[in-house]
């Protein structure tokens, strides 16, 4: 076999190796992307569930104490808290940790917090009394190390 052909064969083998590695890398990346995408979707749905639950508190809502009572009357669901995981926030507000951690199919744990004002406020230019709840979704990356994934806000007014 001529030297040129040998070099071409070697170059082909090198290229083939690179291609094989690239395919493998892309496959891993593809799986990783799919998993991350699913995680994000789970986290966003978790936040939406909590937002809809808070919106359901609008029925029978007369003052902020009624929402607190509803939260307290759901054992294991909400717990009053002074800190929102490791997220700094206004200490004047009324903080709750959602105790239902969402475990995804791949075993990730999500945590959520709900921040409420201490009293009802006039909302929008129509000045209707209600509260704005801020919902934050976290993932525990390391022990007691939380990373915020999403933040929603929703208003709750008496219905």
């Amino acid at each position, binding site marked *: 076999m001529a030297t040129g052909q040998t070099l071409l064969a070697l170059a082909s083998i090198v290229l083939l190796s690179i*291609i094989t590695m690239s395919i493998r890398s892309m496959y891993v990346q593809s799986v990783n992307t799919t998993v991350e*995408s699913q995680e994000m979707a789970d986290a966003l749905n978790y936040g939406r569930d909590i937002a809809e639950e808070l919106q359901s508190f609008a029925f029978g809502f007369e003052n902020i104490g009624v929402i607190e009572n509803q939260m307290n009357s759901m054992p294991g669901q909400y717990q009053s808290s002074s800190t929102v995981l490791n997220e700094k926030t206004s200490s004047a507000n009324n903080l709750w940790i959602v105790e239902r951690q969402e475990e995804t199919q791949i075993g990730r744990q999500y945590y959520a917090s709900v921040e409420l004002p201490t009293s009802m406020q006039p909302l929008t230019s129509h000045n*209707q009394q209600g509260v704005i709840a801020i919902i934050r979704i976290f993932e525990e990356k390391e022990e007691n190390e939380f990373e915020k994934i999403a933040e929603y806000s929703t208003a709750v007014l008496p219905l």
Partner: protein
Amino acid sequence: MGKYALIIVGALIFSVLTYSYALKNALFHSNVRSVQSYSQNQAHNISQSAAMVAINDIRNDSNSNFHPSAGQTYVFPGADQFSPWGDMHGEYHLEVMNQADTLLNLQSTGKFKDTIYRINIGLSKGTTSWNPIIDQAIHAENSVSLGGNDFVKGDVTINSIQSSAVNLGSQPKVKIDGSLMVGPGGDPESVVAGNLTNVGGNTGAMLDLLKYTMPLFPDYPAVSSTGSSVYSSTSLSTSDYNGKYIPEIVLSGNSTLNIDTGEEGDEVVMHVGKFDVQSSSVNLAGSGKLTMYVDTHIDLKGKGTVNEGGDVNQLMVYYKGNQEVELYEETLDFGGNTYFNGSLFADKANIKLYGTAGIQGNVITGGDHVDLKGNAEAISRSIFAPNATVESNGTVYVRGSIISYQFVGSGTTTVEYDPDLDTEWPDLEQIGEDFVVLYWN
């Protein structure tokens, strides 16, 4: 051989590049979908929240813009426009259509970034007769405060269960000779600041909240023609004013206006732009009932009297108020030595009764303040002001009931519930209790 190898490797590289491009495309779309999903959720939250705001506005404000006339549509803030909502990090748009005066179709649109989410809500719309059941001397939604020499002859109710919502002071004497009932679930010992021995009757919690709803302010009837204004003593027959628009009735200097109201069973209507009675008298002659619709000005001062000595149920006055002073409070003053014998319904004006002013009849107001001062006297089936702070200061006497958001008594106020008062409720409507959500999707 080498040539074939190169072709094969080239084909493989092409395949890998294609795969890589497809993968990157999929990754990009995956991220876009996540962002879209987040945006859609937040747009959904905004639309739900804006809908709740609109529903509250409809229910709480009898003049809500979100409650258009039959067949009309109200759009906020304007066609194809969105109003920013900073706390929600987005914008909203609301449209309400009144379908045949039986259904309000509310469309709420939330917008976050470029994502829009729309929901449709149906609210049944109906009206029922306004006929509040009042059997207490004082009712307050939020708080009741009684000073040292105040005395309530009758029951007191309060919807609040907040601590110290009822303040009876520290004097060891009975200030409420009837019962005191607080909101459902409340503990009177906690709700009352002071001593429960200030209450002569029972104390306890009500089984349900008491709802006192403002009646709908009536639409003024159409006028057939314009009559003459009145500036001096005169007499008006029913043909002079019934169904007509009288621009002004302005009396001063001991003038007397006699208004013929026809025979018993007659119901006559006068539409007046300005009604100003200073040290003069307006008398009702005849046995019919007069309903007076006043546009922008009511003033009763000096020794002004209206229907003194007549039947309280013969006169009903509606006061729309000056729409041009929407941004500041308007107050109807009844001062000096005046006397008004009839019922009054002010759409949004505050009411002030002072000096030795007297009023006999129902007083209904959507305003936020009612002041009773000096030696004012009100003999009223009800001072019905569920949105107002009713403040009483001086030697004030009220026979009847007070319905308020909060009641603040000081000086020597006496409120005496009288079940035998024969003042009739005006024939009014309220937004029906069946104003409920029919669908939400």
